């Protein structure tokens, strides 16, 4: 154990890894701070580079980037009233209102410290929970893996915001893409249209770059003329002390937000944005801040906002870390970013899942260390970003779009030194664009592409092994537990819908009621 930690520390302390961590941190902060650019887009653009790195720096790049991007998404929320990433959408109104009342930097400072604390909590959860689940997963056979993958797919559909049926269609599209290539049973080519290059299947990385990179550019170039947005001025000095005071006052909120984020993020297919919405709803509905006792109504309103931000902001960063629990233990992605990470790991010959805990413990421990380091690094870099946020937001969109196209093309080309991947990227870019126009979520597509082969391989293996005795899928004890989980997941649809509606109502009510809850 100690030896493993030592060798993990050596892997992380490698100059390449340190350089990669710093560069991807800056990259994550910039992309996350730009409205409309999601952490998933940043991950898709990082992948071509991680392709050429050793496993540990590759993992470090994606983890550091995502921790930074999720916090940075709060910056345009506060300054422009546009969330930088979907995870910040829950408390955008509150952050912007604080800016209007001259407390913008304090709001952002609170959100930063809450993010760091939430991220650290999520990391600790990851370190302690994933080995337990990993040990449990050692007893898995193809039946159990089939059910775990089905659980991931079910969750992906359930948490699709908006319409679950659209989520289902998106998932089927992803699964269909995953069947391209030679099949697992007879080696028969499927959907290859006579192209031998397609025998090995659709390249996952090309698909990701297209779905998240190129589709974003397509959306931007065909967008209607927008308004230019004035960026409010913020006074950056003297924020640290009021920030720490605010965090101390809301320590219980940070705690409960972290726990909610940790639990929700660990559900396969859920993720940080849903964690933030739920934590927001809980914090708002249990708030005890009232005007009175030397606190004017306006001050009480601002304190409530700070309270809500502490809860939700700690939740989304906790969710980022705990999304790695199912990823490491079962090889089932917790969200789109971990799905991309699984794609990268598979390319590098690392199979996420219980084997990681047995044979690749130094990689595993380095991953833990990176989580802690990334969250600690977020603190100074985050304060720096708050100071220079105005500058980051002024990066011209036109130049950014040109750069995304150039990186996308290079990344797709570099996969196999061929043009087929560029073609696939364009195809997926158009698909991503059309899906978003039709309100079809993209996350289930990604999970379908990643989990499709796992579901099919384990299903076919199981049925061929037992000569089509399907009862085996239901009668094994661990399978039975997993089936119960799948059923519970499906049964939770109304609950999730209720929580979501409650959160959204809380947001709109805030405006309608003003802030005179029990003031009279």
């Amino acid at each position: 154990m100690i030896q493993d930690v030592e060798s993990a520390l050596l892997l992380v302390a490698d100059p390449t890894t340190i350089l990669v961590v710093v560069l991807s941190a800056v990259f994550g902060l910039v992309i996350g701070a730009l409205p409309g650019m999601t952490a998933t887009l940043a991950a898709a653009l990082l992948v071509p580079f991680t392709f050429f790195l050793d496993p540990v720096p590759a993992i470090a790049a994606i983890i550091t980037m995502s921790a930074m991007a999720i916090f940075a998404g709060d910056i345009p929320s506060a300054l422009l009233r546009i969330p930088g990433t979907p995870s910040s959408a829950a408390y955008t109104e509150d952050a912007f209102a604080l800016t209007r009342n001259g407390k913008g930097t304090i709001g952002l400072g609170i959100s930063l410290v809450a993010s760091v604390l939430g991220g650290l909590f999520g990391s600790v959860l990851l370190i302690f929970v994933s080995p337990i689940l990993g040990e449990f997963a050692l007893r898995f056979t193809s039946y159990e893996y089939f059910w775990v993958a089905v659980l991931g797919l079910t969750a992906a559909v359930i948490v699709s915001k908006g319409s679950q049926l659209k989520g289902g269609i998106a998932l089927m599209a992803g699964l269909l893409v995953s069947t391209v290539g030679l099949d697992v049973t007879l080696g028969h080519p499927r959907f290859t249209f006579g192209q031998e290059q397609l025998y090995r299947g659709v390249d996952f990385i090309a698909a990701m770059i297209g779905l998240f990179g190129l589709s974003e550019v397509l959306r931007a170039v065909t967008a209607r003329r927008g308004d230019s947005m004035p960026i409010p001025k913020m006074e950056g000095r003297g924020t640290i002390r009021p920030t720490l005071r605010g965090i101390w006052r809301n320590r219980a909120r940070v705690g409960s937000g972290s726990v909610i984020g940790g639990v929700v993020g660990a559900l396969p297919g859920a993720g940080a944005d849903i964690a933030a919405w739920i934590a927001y709803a809980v914090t708002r509905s249990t708030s005890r801040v009232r005007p009175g006792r030397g606190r004017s109504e306006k001050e009480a309103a601002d304190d409530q906002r700070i309270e809500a931000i502490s809860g939700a902001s700690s939740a989304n960063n906790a969710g980022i870390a705990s999304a790695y629990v199912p990823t490491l233990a079962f090889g089932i992605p917790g969200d789109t970013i971990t799905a991309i990470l699984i794609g990268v790991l598979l390319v590098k010959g690392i199979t996420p899942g219980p084997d990681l805990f047995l044979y690749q413990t130094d990689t595993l421990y380095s991953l833990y260390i990176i989580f802690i380091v990334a969250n600690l690094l977020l603190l100074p870099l985050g304060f720096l970003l708050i100071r220079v946020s105005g500058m980051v937001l002024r990066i011209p969109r036109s130049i950014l779009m040109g750069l995304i196209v150039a990186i996308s093309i290079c990344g797709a080309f570099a996969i196999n030194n061929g043009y087929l991947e560029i073609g696939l990227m364009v195809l997926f870019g158009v698909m991503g664009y059309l899906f978003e126009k039709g309100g079809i979520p993209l996350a289930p597509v990604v999970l379908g592409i990643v989990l499709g082969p796992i579901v099919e391989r384990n299903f076919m293996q199981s049925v061929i092994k037992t000569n089509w005795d399907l009862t085996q899928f239901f009668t094994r004890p661990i399978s039975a537990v997993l089936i119960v989980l799948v059923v519970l997941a499906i049964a939770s649809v109304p609950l999730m819908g209720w929580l979501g509606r409650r959160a959204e109502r809380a947001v709109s009510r805030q405006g309608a009621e003003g802030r005179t809850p029990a003031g009279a």
Partner: protein
Amino acid sequence: MTAADPISTPPRGPLRQNLLIGVLSVLAGAVVIPYGASMPYIREGIPGPGLFPMMIGGLLILFGVLLPLSTWIGARREGRRRHRAGAGGGAAAPGDGDGSEAFALPGAAVQDADGDTPVEALETAGVMDTDVGSDGPRRWINGAILLVGILAYVLLAPVLGFPITMALLVIAIVRSLRASWLAAVLTGVLASLGLWGLFEQVLLVQLPDGLIRGF
């Protein structure tokens, strides 16, 4: 989500959109199932390679039928509810159809509480350039420039080489978004040289050389 008229009719937009998605989904399923069935069987009656595509096709048809149906039922129920509530103004339906990646502000309620400083009174420091969009046919021309540009890149890169072709492509895209010539040319040249250096020199990926072979 505009203010609906009091005697509301179910909104047509989402219904039509979901109908289109449903039809396309059913069509995809209808193509995939026979294709899956035409694949070899492991042995008599036991499908192999075709099993998964057929199952996916079946679910595509199922979801494709259910989607417009559920939208229609939902719209009718909403219509009835609103009718009962009387002229209550347009209650915004909780956002249907925003994917987890696309996000809209829920309700977009402007929160002007008594104590809040009005937006206009904010001191500003610079302007964010969100204004890359265009109007009318220009939007579709921009989309075409992007897609045709990438196609042209694939055709021309082996001849002209990576640095020149990529620079041209980036210049075209940046310029189509109404940036100045200077900004477009600078971005194009720097991006293509930077990526060339990074991929060829650091990551050792062989990018197309074309004309500049041997440099």
